[in-house]
């Protein structure tokens, strides 16, 4: 008996963690399972197993056009925000300059502001200047809220980059640009990649800000929200699950790659 209770007290927290993870994954599992549902109009009741939805993910109307828009906005916003954010992170990490604390505050504030305020204020401004909301305004908004996250992610990487490496490069006849291109950038690359991945995830999954700034442009989250009323087609589940596995593969393989780099002897 005593050994059982000892085992329990040692592992209680591990048992808890197991249940916590299960809880986290319940809706994911549900989404995945119901992507195989032989549903008609709504996907609420289980009718039977089928691979049809997976074979024809664009079968439901508007799903793929919404998905396409999400990708266009996501990729564009990621590209722009990653570049802008990396430049800021590098400046913050390597230089002393006046206005440092104001810069830090400006970067921090969007992360501390509720999305509804971000969305509402942008819409107000666009209305004021008579600018119609469209994909462009959506991209503008997405870049805006992604920059801060890119800065924080890349800045951490810059901080861990030994400045002596850049000094060594200059000592070895590389000018500022060559140093940046051949030493700094390659070594920052993992951080920049992580920032880009983060930015894309935030953009792809965004609903509130997109709702306010995208006008009539449909994105995948908007599509899901609007069809929640009449029933989400199983194809949405298919796409949601596919994105999940894709992201999982990307994250796991990047971890394996970086682990392998360290171990080789």
């Amino acid at each position, binding site marked *: 008996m005593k050994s059982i209770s000892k085992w329990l007290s040692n592992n209680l927290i591990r048992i808890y963690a197991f249940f916590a993870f299960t809880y986290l994954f319940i809706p994911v599992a549900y989404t995945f399972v119901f992507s195989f549902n032989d549903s008609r109009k709504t996907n609420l009741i289980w009718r039977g197993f089928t691979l049809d939805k997976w074979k024809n993910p664009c079968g439901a109307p508007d799903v793929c056009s919404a998905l396409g828009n999400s990708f266009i906005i996501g990729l564009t916003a990621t590209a722009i925000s990653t570049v802008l954010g990396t430049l800021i992170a590098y400046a913050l990490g390597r230089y002393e300059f006046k206005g440092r604390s104001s810069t830090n505050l400006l970067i921090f504030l969007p992360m501390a502001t509720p999305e509804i305020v971000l969305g509402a204020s942008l819409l107000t401004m666009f209305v004021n200047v008579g600018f119609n909301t469209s994909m462009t305004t959506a991209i503008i908004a997405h870049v805006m809220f992604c920059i801060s996250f890119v800065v924080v992610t890349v800045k951490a990487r810059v901080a861990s980059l030994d400045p002596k490496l850049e*000094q*060594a490069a*200059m*000592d*070895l*006849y590389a000018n500022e640009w060559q140093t940046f291109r051949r030493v700094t950038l390659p070594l920052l690359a993992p951080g920049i990649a992580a920032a880009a991945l983060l930015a894309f995830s935030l953009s792809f999954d965004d609903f509130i800000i997109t709702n306010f700034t995208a006008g009539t442009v449909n994105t995948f989250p908007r599509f899901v929200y609007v069809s929640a009323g009449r029933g989400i087609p199983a194809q949405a589940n298919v796409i949601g699950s596919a994105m999940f596995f894709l992201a999982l593969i990307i994250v796991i393989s990047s971890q394996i790659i970086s682990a392998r780099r360290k171990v080789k002897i």
Partner: protein
Amino acid sequence: MAVDASTSARGDLILKNLTKSFGEFNAVDDLSLVIPKGSFFALLGPSGCGKTTTLRMVAGLEVPTSGSIFVGETDITEMKPYRRPVNTVFQNYALFPHLTIFENIAFGLRRRGITDAEVKTAVDKVLTLIELPELAGRKPNQLSGGQQQRIAVARAIVNRPALLLLDEPLGALDLKLRRQMQIELKWIQTEIGITFVHVTHDQEEAMTMADTIAVMNKGKIEQMGTPEELYDSPKTSFVANFLGQSNLIPGKVSGSDGDNLVVDLFGTKVSVPKSRNSATGDSVLVGVRPEKFRIALEGKATHGNVLTGAVVSDVSYIGVSTQYQVEMPWGKEVMVFEQNDDDEEMLRKGAKVVLSWEPIFTFALDGKDSATAGSN
């Protein structure tokens, strides 16, 4: 990419009135120095003395507040690091982790537009010199500390700079490896003939490797010379205490005897060679290194300078030698190192002893110097 003409400048390294201030604090204070081409030069001093700052100014990684730096005829004071004929071996090697060893070494050559074929020849040659040709394809994190250190040196010397700067390159190595690397670096320097400027706080290292040493303290040079000069004839108590150990005993010049001065040490007269005297007045600090003392029981025969009335207060057996702390009649202690090279018994604590030494091994410093400056 064209090779900058300035990277081919050659000649002695000349520092003129070099100063680096951080606000009120002068890290380097009006330093002037000539380091002859082809020599192995050491900048020695405790941490914070300004030696690394000086090195970084020569490398171009730090901008001087005033003064100038010349390589031969070329003024490099304002030049960016990548224009100077100077390469640095950094303290933690700073090898590029994302490049192979080959590419690390080739880095400087490629920036100067050397052709691929020439690069391969040069890199292979230097890898052979440091006896690590098999590591060319590896990455820095796969190498041991000693190997990384040698690659860092190779990466610098492959560029045939006028000057190689070494910023405490052996600090991260264990004792045995450090000793080995000291010999190797010295050998490399004599092989290729580049001027080496080696910054270190380890006085043994400086004395082992360097032709000339400059001892720095608080941004200034205390004394410069060969290791023998600095060791046998220190001019300030800082140098006397920083290099090896010294016993400094206050005394008064009482007369002269040919080439020697006669100095009164608490009633006893001792001889000090005039050539080893840096004091200007009558008040002096007489210096004798602990290993120069001969220690014997009272009553035994002695010659040279003699101090009587001493009592052994502590004994430490160190294998190679025995260290004695000896209390002198005037209340202070001196250190004596006696090599264990004969059958004589160790002296015990409390033993009454007499100290003697050859007058030629005495030096004298200005009486106003602090007797403890430079000791740690």
